[in-house]
């Protein structure tokens, strides 16, 4: 009797401590990693705002003056680069989509036993360093190079014309470097489509074109959205292509942030621009999340 009376609370205490142990374990497991991300990702992003409002110079030091005018000032000074970044990134994203949709479609529906080989072939070039690949494009497009001479022969490039240091070169470079980010999510989305749905459409007398337009394409949209985001965001912040394949006429916002931080050492302007870029992207993601639902968005990216 008395033993039963004491056993019940003891069991309850045992359960409670198990639950608490569980909770403790959870925090122990993720604590270090989460702390790392807070300390070296979240805090730095917020810190950008703090840095951007300072005034001074790199030699004598910066003081916090809550100089909010840095935002309108730097945005108006670098409007060209901001819009150029948006334009280049958007063009490259569309080009990536146009190039990789038929490729992904072919791999998912037609490649048969060559499927894995073709997927490997998409990934393989990207085992060469980003910089090496872009320098290779520099070689291909070089003023004295084979390609420029052939294009001059056919008259596609003027005799004193060049390919390097043009908008075309920079956009082509971005398109090249981010192509797998578009092709792979597209492939995954197309691969997941239930083939029976397409068969059903053709059985019901839809032509193959109609079946594609009304069944395949809508079902591939998650892949298109994911690929667009995965291509557009890194393209927006890219500065390597503009640096190596373009000239100052093609500089993007990434080039400005890089040179303001590392060359000019005007940290507040650099921080302000990078904060603006981050804000633009967060707004973009929010709009996307609105359109797709957060869950779909996160799933499609991660």
């Amino acid at each position, binding site marked *: 009797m008395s033993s039963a009376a004491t056993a019940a609370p003891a069991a309850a205490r045992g359960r409670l401590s198990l639950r608490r142990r569980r909770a403790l374990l959870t925090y122990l497991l*993720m604590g270090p990693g989460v702390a790392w991300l807070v300390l070296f990702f979240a805090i730095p992003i917020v810190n950008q705002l703090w840095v951007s409002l300072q005034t001074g110079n790199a030699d004598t030091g910066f003081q916090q003056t809550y100089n909010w005018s840095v935002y309108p000032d730097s945005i108006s000074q670098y409007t060209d680069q901001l819009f150029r970044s948006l334009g280049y990134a958007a063009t490259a994203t569309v080009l990536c989509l146009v190039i990789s949709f038929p490729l992904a479609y072919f791999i998912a529906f037609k490649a048969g036993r060559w499927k894995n080989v073709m997927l490997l072939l998409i990934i393989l070039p990207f085992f060469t360093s980003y910089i090496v690949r872009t320098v290779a494009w520099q*070689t291909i497009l070089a003023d004295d190079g084979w390609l420029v001479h052939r294009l001059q022969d056919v008259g596609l490039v003027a005799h004193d014309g060049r390919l390097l240091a043009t908008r075309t070169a920079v956009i082509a470079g971005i398109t090249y470097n981010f192509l797998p980010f578009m092709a792979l999510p597209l492939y995954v989305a197309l691969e997941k489509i239930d083939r029976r749905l397409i068969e059903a459409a053709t059985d019901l007398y839809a032509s193959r074109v109609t079946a594609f337009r009304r069944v395949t394409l809508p079902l591939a949209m998650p892949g298109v959205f994911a690929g667009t985001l995965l291509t557009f965001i890194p393209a927006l912040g890219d500065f390597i292509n503009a640096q190596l394949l373009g000239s100052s006429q093609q500089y993007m916002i990434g080039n400005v942030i890089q040179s303001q931080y590392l060359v000019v050492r005007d940290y507040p302007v650099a921080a302000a621009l990078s904060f603006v870029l981050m804000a633009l992207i967060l707004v973009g993601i929010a709009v996307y999340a609105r359109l797709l639902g957060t869950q779909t968005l996160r799933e499609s990216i991660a």
Partner: protein
Amino acid sequence: MRTRADRLRDWAIGIWAALALIYLFIPIFVVALFSFNDNKGRFNFTWEGFTWRHWQHPFSVEGLGPALEKSLIIGLLATLIALVLGTGIALATVRHRFRARGVVEQLIFLPLATPEVVMGAALLGLFLTANFARGFVTILIAHVMFTLGYVVVTIRARLEGMDLHVEEAAMDLGANEWTTLRKVTLPLIAPGIAAAGLLAYAISIDDFVVTNFNAGQTTTFPLFIYGAARQGVPPEVNVLATALLLTVLALMILNVLLQRRLARRDAGARPTSAAPAPVPEVLTPGTAAAH
């Protein structure tokens, strides 16, 4: 019913796909070709004849060897740290419910969706504010930060496909959490951890942007090439890049053959279709979890 127009369209798609793949390989051919270029000056832009010279002495360029070594070491350390931290996050977020879950999810997701230039600049801002000298340590910190998300996502994909009951069975049989983790969970998710490690390593040794912001005077392999690009990249860089690519290719082929053999053994005498190549999964963190 396949009409003639359908067949024509299939051909067009096939040709387009082939052209797209060729486009992807053009710069790679150029990199390999120019590793044999007998270039006279510093520049390696025009073809001047064939030579084995650069392949015989790939490390003859000053600074190239140390830079490569630094990249390999940083990659290894960053991968190890990210694997430990990332496995913890993956286990915690898949297994347990807790209040701050939404915030943690955002913390994992956002670095994957942030342009590198913003991450690099923000981190440099922090180090400047804290007056912390840039160098080996700051590069390592940065690399762990931006590989962590990929690691978590890749390991989580593996965990989500796993049967929870195995763990419960172990606990029922008297194993405590630590023993269960060590003897049951970790061995089961080992392929996921391996894939995550390879991915993290590949991302780390190729990173330029974030490293560029936080390197101080330290030079990694990508930083070395970028610096060299102003005066002409030496052909020795092409040699190393080509050699690296051939190594990866060899590993991939080996892997496919191994998988095929394993699949055949599992399936007995039955002929098997093409074995799944694990590499696409390794390299597509964005898509791994979507399967």
